[in-house]
């Protein structure tokens, strides 16, 4: 215990010094107008109450203001935020969080175990309408039995069954990072007023459908080290952050080029080339955890032959395809484990190379007789459409006749949910954990027609991967799943698409990361 508190003290000291340095830097600059960094929201925020009435915009804005016990790091693992460390009991049922000291809410009050218990109890009250309540009330992975303050700096959370996703779920942006709030955020009657959190910015102004403005919190206690996802050292480098509500994509691009905003997060692929050619603007891309893939209906009379599916996988030049359709913003990935995941190592990181001779041999062995195969795609996601066009041309080189059918996205989704297709270029949205990535594709088609990979053994491997928290053990299971997926080829993973932002020259430090949530901390503007 003693050792830990010593280390904690050092950390606090370091953090304090860093904060001082930043403050000194700002104070040392000549007197000038308040610096403002302007970002864009494609729709207004829905509320200021984290994790309740929310969408992606709401999450992104509020995560500048509030913080949870733990937060996502860049590699999709979970790191300390308001808790500097935690212990898990041997049975996996009790999590003991050791809080950071010296953290103060925006109203100056210290953050202690009492506020943590208050905040969690509030989320667990159905009247709060917390988005993630169903994960913790027994419907989902586990149930929080009790939240208890052991001392002013220690909180214990008791679960009814172990869950490897417990911390990740707490850290989820759509859960509002399970933010620790000051009880002053609500009125005496329990009605929401405004978020009084511990983040680097304070919530100051909300003009509905116009903008949201945040102000630098001078009393912010930053973690040491660099920014790391939503965790790590966070610093407000500008006096104010303003998120302008600009629904239309091209209007937002106009605003960026004319200087009305500094950062445009989420550039549409069709305007990449234009923006790249524009002066005074640079692009920043980072691969997301979404998955673009070619999926097959393994129950289809033609596609049921694994040799034909593997032949198609071997005909695809994934590296070339990814380079061309993403305009060099993303990297090829043959694994269901996203490139930004900590598990994306070893066999996972090997991209399948085309082997036309082997592919042709497999086609011959499969008894494929030139039947046309319909490949469904859509125009809403240009990269999916382009991938389909390239796959068609590549399949032709091994003598497989693919016909493209472009539906709109709504119709394609309908077909996906009913399993009514032969082949389809499809996008899986980001999942928290590789187990969930596999969970999205593995299942029995009779009960879940939207599942792609109906294989009992794979299902068993998947189940095993959720039963353990041991990293090495899980890695081995994922590697085994990956090899099996390549062999059976129920789907061909193509790449993880990138999230692209455009920033004006003069903006320093902005980086996109593996989520769609934009971060304007540790960003300055000249």
């Amino acid at each position: 215990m003693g050792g830990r508190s010593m280390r904690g003290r050092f950390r606090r000291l370091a953090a304090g010094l860093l904060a001082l340095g930043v403050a000194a830097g700002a104070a040392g600059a000549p007197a000038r107008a308040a610096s403002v960094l302007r970002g864009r929201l494609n729709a207004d925020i829905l509320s200021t109450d984290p994790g309740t009435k929310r969408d992606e915009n709401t999450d992104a804005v509020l995560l500048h203001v509030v913080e949870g016990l733990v937060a996502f790091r860049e590699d999709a693992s979970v790191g300390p935020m308001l808790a500097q460390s935690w212990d898990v009991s041997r049975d996996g049922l009790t999590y003991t969080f050791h809080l950071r000291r010296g953290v103060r809410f925006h109203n100056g009050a210290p953050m202690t175990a009492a506020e943590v218990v208050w905040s969690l109890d509030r989320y667990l009250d159905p009247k709060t309408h917390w988005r993630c309540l169903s994960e913790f009330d027994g419907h989902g992975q586990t149930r929080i039995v009790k939240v208890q303050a052991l001392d002013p700096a220690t909180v214990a959370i008791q679960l009814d069954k172990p869950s490897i996703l417990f911390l990740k779920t707490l850290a989820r942006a759509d859960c509002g990072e399970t933010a620790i709030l000051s009880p002053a955020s609500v009125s005496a009657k329990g009605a929401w007023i405004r978020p009084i959190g511990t983040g680097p910015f304070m919530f100051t102004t909300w003009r509905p459908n116009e903008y949201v403005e945040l102000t630098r919190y001078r009393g912010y206690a930053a973690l040491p080290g660099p920014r790391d996802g939503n965790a790590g050292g966070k610093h407000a480098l500008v006096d104010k952050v303003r998120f302008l509500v600009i629904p239309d994509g091209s209007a937002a691009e106009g605003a960026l080029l004319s200087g009305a905003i500094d950062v445009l997060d989420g550039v549409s692929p069709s305007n990449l080339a234009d923006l790249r050619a524009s002066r005074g603007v640079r692009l920043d891309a980072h691969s997301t955890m979404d998955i673009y893939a070619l999926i097959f209906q393994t129950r289809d009379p033609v596609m049921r032959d694994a040799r034909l599916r593997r032949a198609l996988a071997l005909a695809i030049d994934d590296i070339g395809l990814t380079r061309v359709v993403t305009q060099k913003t993303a990297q090829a990935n043959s694994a269901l484990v996203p490139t930004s995941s900590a598990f994306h190592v070893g066999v996972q990181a090997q991209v399948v190379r085309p082997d036309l001779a082997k592919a042709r041999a497999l086609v011959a062995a499969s008894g494929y007789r030139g039947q046309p195969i319909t490949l469904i795609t859509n125009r809403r996601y240009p990269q999916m459409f382009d991938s389909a066009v390239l796959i068609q041309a590549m399949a032709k080189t091994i003598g497989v006749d693919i016909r493209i059918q472009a539906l709109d996205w709504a119709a394609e989704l309908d077909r996906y949910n009913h399993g009514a297709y032969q082949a389809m270029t499809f996008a899986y949205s980001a999942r928290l954990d590789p187990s969930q990535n596999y969970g999205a594709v593995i299942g029995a088609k009779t009960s879940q027609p939207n599942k792609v990979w109906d294989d009992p053994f794979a299902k068993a491997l998947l189940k095993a991967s959720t039963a353990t928290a041991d990293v090495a053990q899980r890695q081995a299971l994922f590697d085994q799943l990956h090899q099996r997926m390549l062999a059976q080829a129920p789907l061909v993973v193509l790449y993880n698409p990138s999230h692209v932002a455009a920033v004006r020259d003069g903006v320093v430090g902005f980086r996109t990361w593996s989520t769609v949530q934009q971060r304007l901390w540790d960003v300055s503007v000249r």
Partner: protein
Amino acid sequence: MAATRLPRMPRRAGALIGAVLVGALFLVMAVSLVWTPYDPLAIDLDATLAAPSAAHWLGTDEFGRDVLSRAMAGARVSALIAAGTVAGAIGLGAAIGLVAGFVRGWTDRLLMSVNDAVLAFPGVLLAIALMAAFGGGAGGLMLALGLAYLPAVIRVVRGAVLSVRESAYVEASRVMGNSELYSMVRHVLPNMVGPIAVLASSLFGWVILAESALSFLGLGVAPPAPTWGNMLASARPFFSQDPWLGIAPGLLIAATLLGVNLLGDALRDALDPKSGG
């Protein structure tokens, strides 16, 4: 109307240019059936967005496909869609228009009020809605465009029927005791050929334009078929850097429309009963 036309020489020149342009279109179509410089669908990921060169006269697109080959193949697809749509719309529209104009009474009134309701609706809009509904594909596109232009055809045909059926020889046929149906087939139909031909030529131009517009919006024909509209649509994101991608298909659309328009003008002049040669 005779006075509204240009002097004979330029008029002939216009008809000639029109014939040459349309003839060239058909030639390209015919050639593309047996030969294109490259396979219009073959990709080359190491030679994407290449500028025009000796190997690729019109350059390559974002997937390294030969633009010239695609433009040639596109002529075939675009023209076939236009021809199919026009044939369908004219066939069905002429039948309904003939019935409405000849039978008159309640049938006519009902048909025309439904027709007017559909006419009150911008055709392109209707096509957009239908294409979004039925998905891509040449068949769906022809159906959508055909339906969008049907009301106009019905209106024109019915108007022409009404004017022809009052003419002396139809009256005479009726007096001679021939049945309505016989009069219609024997006398009215042949007299409709002129106006329908003029209408068909304008319609052909409109459909080429509408097809390219819908494809441009991503609601047109899906690949493998390259159409001019598809080519323009995929050129849009790269237009500021690689403009040649959009030049060829646009020029081809414009040249085709010009040819069709000039021929249509010539046809109208030739068929105008008042022109007197």
